[in-house]
């Protein structure tokens, strides 16, 4: 479904991606792990076309992302941003139904609102939240609204950028369970980036470890603990000692 071939990206003199090769089959939940600043977000944004790679090829359903019709291409995606990225000037339901209120997926306002409320229910929020503004919500609620927005148009592919960052362990567990349920229920292909190992074990079918701009290890989540890869071992056990420098 998603294929990255030898993807490179630099920002000035800093080489962030140095030749990423990765394959995510349809319907699979892939979690990308790696330390802060290793290029996880850049990789994800490259797939979406928010960042243009300097070299290499990214294919989604065998179609080169740089040659695809942008609207049709993006209509296949849903994305949960790290901070929610909810639009401050719109109410919760307008945020959730954003894609349904404009563009090729436009529906009548009342129908879009009904879908938004149903999606809010799906992520555990009551309909009375619908008319609030994002600034009136807690961090956990904002994440849930972001999740509802990501699934509102029932996309084939969903990206989750640090879905549990800034949340307490219980709310993190709630979000992890929701993501897993939704991905399984919708049969969507999911790509999550995180360094929260609880999330990894809750969400992933497969895991890829990104370090120094390349994929160091990839495999099933069940094989992760016995991988024998020193980079992965250090990361999943949170050790200061190992091949990954603690101060980067």
């Amino acid at each position: 479904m998603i294929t990255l071939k030898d993807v490179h990206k630099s920002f000035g003199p800093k080489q962030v991606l140095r030749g990423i090769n990765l394959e995510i089959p349809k319907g699979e939940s892939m979690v990308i792990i790696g330390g802060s600043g290793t290029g996880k977000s850049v990789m994800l944004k490259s797939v979406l076309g928010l960042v243009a790679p300097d070299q290499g090829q990214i294919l989604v359903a065998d179609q080169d992302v740089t040659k695809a019709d942008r609207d049709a291409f993006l209509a296949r995606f849903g994305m949960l941003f790290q901070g929610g990225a909810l639009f401050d000037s719109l109410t919760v339901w307008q945020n959730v139904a954003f894609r349904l209120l404009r563009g090729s997926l436009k529906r009548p306002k009342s129908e879009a609102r009904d879908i938004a409320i149903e999606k809010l229910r799906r992520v555990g929020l009551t309909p009375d939240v619908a008319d609030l503004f994002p600034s009136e919500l807690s961090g956990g609620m904002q994440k849930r609204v972001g999740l509802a927005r990501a699934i509102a148009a029932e996309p084939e592919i969903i990206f989750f950028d640090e879905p549990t960052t800034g949340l307490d362990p219980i709310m993190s567990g709630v979000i992890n369970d929701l993501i897993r349920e939704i991905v399984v229920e919708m049969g969507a292909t999911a790509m999550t980036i995180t360094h929260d190992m609880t999330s990894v074990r809750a969400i992933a079918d497969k895991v890829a470890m990104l370090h120094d701009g390349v994929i160091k290890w990839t495999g099933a989540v069940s094989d992760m603990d016995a991988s024998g890869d020193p980079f992965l071992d250090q990361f999943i056990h949170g050790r200061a000692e190992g091949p990954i420098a603690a101060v980067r």
Partner: protein
Amino acid sequence: MILLTPLAHLGRATLALFAMTGRVCIFALEGISHMFRPPFYWREFFTALMQIGWLSLPVVGLTAFFTGGALALQIFAGGARFSAEAVVPQIVAIGMVRELGPVLVGLMIAARVTSSIAAEIATMKVTEQIDALVTLSTHPMKYLTAPRVLAALIVVPILVGIGDIIGIFGGFIVGTQQLGFNPASYIKNTVDFLEVSDIVSSLIKGCAFGGIAATMGCYFGMQSGRGAQGVGQATKSSVQAAAVLILAANFLLTSVFFSS
């Protein structure tokens, strides 16, 4: 070698200025092109109309009123040196309509609207809301820039017209209440002296200044760096650029309209 260092700095600064001018021009042209290509975001357009037009009325009105009043006092005092006190209505009218009305409204819009647009868009960029727009199949230039620039192009000339009238009214109040002018003759002198070309030039200036103010706010907001510092820098740069460009455009337009 040391002697060449200032020249090298000057060269780099000049190149940077040209590069930024080019980027701003491309940005403005792209924004304008989106005004004529669907989809159109009417809700954002009408919100921008309210924000830029209606909500700027108090500050524009007060600024114009006090400036008109002060202008009347200055002209009266200055005119007294060569027995020309009687020209207060005419000079207030021409001063407000040709110069002070458009420039003051433009600068007030730069202070109030440019800063607000830049801060809002920069915050949206920092909090990934711009990226979210793209992932939701919505072009940020079409959704954020085009409605704001179009609203400013339409509503700022109207604000300038209102500012001109309030400024003249400020001069009228001072002239009739403090300087002893007859109200009827003050109004007659004002109306007789003003020409259609004065009013047209005022409104064209308003249109140009509105476009500059909104474009600068959108451009610097979109170019914002990270964090609170990035938002602050974008806001400051947008107001500086808008103010300087408005004054430069005013000189240019004045030269075009009145140099003969």
